[in-house]
């Protein structure tokens, strides 16, 4: 008899727990769902020296009554027109307030007046630091364009680290991994705990994997969003160091309890290089705060420590070089642009791009002088002169091109002289190339 009572009690417990979870999911959904936004930006970009337009679909979440929306940078970047649909199916336009490619976040502002609204429902951020593996979460958004979708899962990991791959970078944050279904289109949508708080912004998924979605933790999102709303961008300090975790280094030098972080590289021409920091230095303190990265996952917080200091901060590094303690002061500079501006030279059939520090590094250039050829239109004057994307334009008619603004200014002048030919001097790797932009026949 007791056995049967126990079974009934156990079943009742399961049913009650299920009902309880079901109730919590519904309540959480109810808190965020009204703030969900289906975003359809029209992006304008240059491809092969020509303007192209494309409409994409993403997700977002309203975070204030006056209509600020958080989404991903990769949803909102290059958008010249953003159409948003609220979960109430009301459509309205939004303005891009600011972008932060370094964290893949963006802030939009809904034009409430267009829909005759005074305010909109919004969701609130939770604390991503208190999130635990195994905790139930819901993801909201527009997977493959299917608006107002909800998926359910658990937190699979709270400290996933990704190395930078091309444009996919995340130097300042770890990722929350979830098995809640995340598909293309979910980008920018909220990952929500069962209290109905945003604990992350969904941004990535493994296309050939199953149930492997990744969200940017809400603590990072809050910081970035506030900065963007206040200043229109996130201003960061930079010194030009590449960091490396010390797990193997500790074993190599037989100091298993060593604390610190290894300098793996010093960028050419950076503040750290001119201050004298070298690859191989072991940094133990930054501004008197002990720092250590035994494992890879501890690197973002060190990068963030420096990035979040005001630009032109004097930063004191305590380090160990050849078994000697040293102190080196580095004055931070403003973090360079992630992506340079692009300019379309219609007359010449090419597009050119500003040379950012990232281009200098990735192309292993000596300086940021010149402009990068980003596209060449088939049949254009540039293509006929054998100008290829990826080349660096250094000189025109023997005169150095200093940068994009200098180029634009010169180009406006050239456009007036249609009959004149121009000799461009370009560089690609170790090889140069002269290209003659042919003047039009009189």
């Amino acid at each position: 008899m007791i056995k049967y009572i126990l079974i009934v009690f156990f079943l009742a417990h399961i049913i009650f727990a299920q009902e309880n979870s079901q109730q919590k999911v519904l309540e959480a959904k109810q808190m965020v769902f009204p703030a969900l936004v289906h975003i359809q930006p029209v992006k304008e970009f240059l491809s092969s020296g020509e303007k192209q337009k494309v409409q994409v679909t993403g997700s977002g979440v309203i975070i204030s009554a006056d209509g600020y929306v958080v989404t991903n940078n990769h949803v909102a970047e290059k958008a010249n027109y953003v159409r948003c649909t609220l979960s109430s199916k009301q459509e309205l336009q939004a303005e891009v307030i600011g972008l932060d490619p370094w964290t893949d976040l963006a802030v939009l502002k809904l034009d409430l007046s267009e829909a005759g609204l005074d305010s909109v429902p919004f969701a609130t951020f939770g604390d991503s630091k208190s999130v635990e593996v195994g905790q139930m979460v819901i993801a909201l958004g527009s997977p493959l364009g299917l608006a107002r979708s909800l998926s359910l899962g658990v937190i699979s990991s709270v400290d996933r680290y990704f190395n930078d791959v091309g444009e996919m970078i995340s130097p300042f944050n770890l990722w929350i991994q979830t098995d809640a279904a995340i598909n293309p289109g979910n980008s920018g949508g909220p990952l929500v705990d069962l209290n109905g708080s945003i604990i992350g912004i969904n941004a990535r998924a493994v296309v050939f994997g199953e149930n492997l979605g990744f969200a940017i933790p809400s603590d990072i999102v809050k910081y970035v969003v506030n900065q963007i709303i206040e200043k229109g961008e996130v201003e960061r300090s930079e010194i030009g160091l590449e960091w490396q975790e010390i797990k193997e280094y500790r074993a190599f030098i037989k100091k298993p309890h060593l604390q610190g972080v290894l300098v793996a590289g010093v960028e050419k021409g950076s503040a750290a290089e001119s201050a004298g920091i070298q690859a191989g230095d072991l940094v133990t303190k930054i501004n008197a705060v002990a720092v250590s990265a035994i494992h890879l996952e501890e690197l973002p917080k060190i990068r963030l420590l420096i990035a979040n200091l005001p630009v032109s901060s004097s930063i004191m590094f305590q380090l160990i070089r050849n078994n000697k303690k040293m102190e080196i002061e580095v004055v931070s500079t403003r973090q360079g642009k992630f992506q340079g501006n692009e300019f379309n030279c219609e007359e010449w059939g090419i597009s050119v791009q500003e040379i950012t520090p990232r281009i200098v590094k990735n192309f292993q250039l000596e300086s940021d002088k010149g402009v990068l050829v980003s596209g060449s239109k088939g049949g254009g004057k540039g293509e006929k002169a054998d100008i290829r994307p990826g080349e660096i334009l250094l000189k025109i008619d023997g005169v150095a091109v200093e940068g994009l603004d200098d180029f634009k200014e010169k180009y406006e002048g050239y456009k007036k002289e249609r009959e004149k030919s121009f000799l461009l001097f370009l560089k690609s790797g170790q090889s140069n190339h002269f290209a003659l932009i042919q003047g039009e026949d009189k």
Partner: protein
Amino acid sequence: MQLIQNFRQIFGISLMLVCPLFAQDVANWQNIKERAENNLVNIEYYEEIQSPESISQINKIRKTLSGVIVDSSGLIMTSSKIFKAKMGFSASSHYGPAHPPKDIKVRLKSGEPVNAVFVGKDDDKNVAFIRTVKPLGEPVHFYNKKIIKNIGQKIFLVFQLSEKYNYQIMILERVINSIIPGSPDKLLTEIGTQNISFGLVYNPDGKNIGILYSAAAGFSAPYSYAPRQSGFGEVILPDTFSDLINDPPTYKKKNTTRKKWLGVNMQPFTRQLARYFNAEKYNGILINTVLKGSPAEKGGLQVGDVLIQFNGTKLKSEKNADLAVLRNLVRESGEESIEVKVLRDAEIKSFKIKLTAVPISQYLADEVSNELLGFSAKELTKDIIMAKQLDYDTNGVWVSRVERAGWADLSGLRVGDLLVKIDNDDLQSIHQLDTFLNRFEKEKPSYVSLFVKRQSETRFLFIKTNFN
């Protein structure tokens, strides 16, 4: 009736004309076959392929080629693809067989195999030489005199079939299908088969007028160095290679016979460019790049110079193919010191330049390996420097092979990594690395530290060892 009689007369005359011609042709085919049998040989050899993922494992692949006996001492000329690695550096780099052919056996038609060794090769002329340990057969006699190079000219291609066909001679009747102007002109013939790689070429008079080279055939190896011009063969005339027969190029690692180089990249000085520079009365070649430390740089040439004369030869270029003239002049230059005339800032200037041997390719570079650590490294050669966009005068070593799942692989070392430091010491030469590796074998450290550069990033790697 009249018509029938006439027809008979015409038929009779035609028969008289055709019969002797037919007889002549058969005689030629037979004649060519008999002569070629004494000159053509079958070369059997092993190509050694080393994987970039293995230190010790070498795959040996048996291959065959035709060759021709070119002197009475046992010198045999064959296709340069008997050893595919380039001797001089070029802008593109590949991984491939770094060792010359091994276990070479040569035989005349159905004859006993005779051992041979690799002598050397000429990458530009597409020929290589081997030498048998004892003389065999008869040297071929090339007809060196004036050869008509008309398109449509009939030729006979003669080569030796492989063991499968009992090493018999095979003759194909073909024509010159295209003549590509140049110095020398390229004579192309459509072979129509992928099976011929090297053979002799006869004219209808039974005169041996040259050799046949086909880039297309025999590329069973995973690495190819020539465009696959399917079905095309190139007739190479004796004036291209007769000097080489008298003085064959030699393969001796770093002392291998190499071409000369100037060290510039160039582009055609087109009429449009000439007009732009107000220099329409000049023809030449525009220099767009001068490589650091090259003969051109040492001799004073600059980017933007227009080369108008090379050792007295006037230069002219309107398209890329025209640049080959100067390239050949430089590469084949017998003289070390040459004079060039350039147009610079509307003035003609003369420069004396000392031409040197083209820097070696990575295939001739010294390599050191350590099986226990599981990696090999080579000294930096100019081809690798260019591929990696390093400063042209960079010294150092790069990782050429990493044993799959070996200690180095597990630590994250990758083929192509530049080794900058080892155990915190700067690494400038391959010999230095060799010293370190020998020391590690004795001292058996539990970790080895490497500081590597991979594209634009640097990183420390710690190889966990297990010497004991």
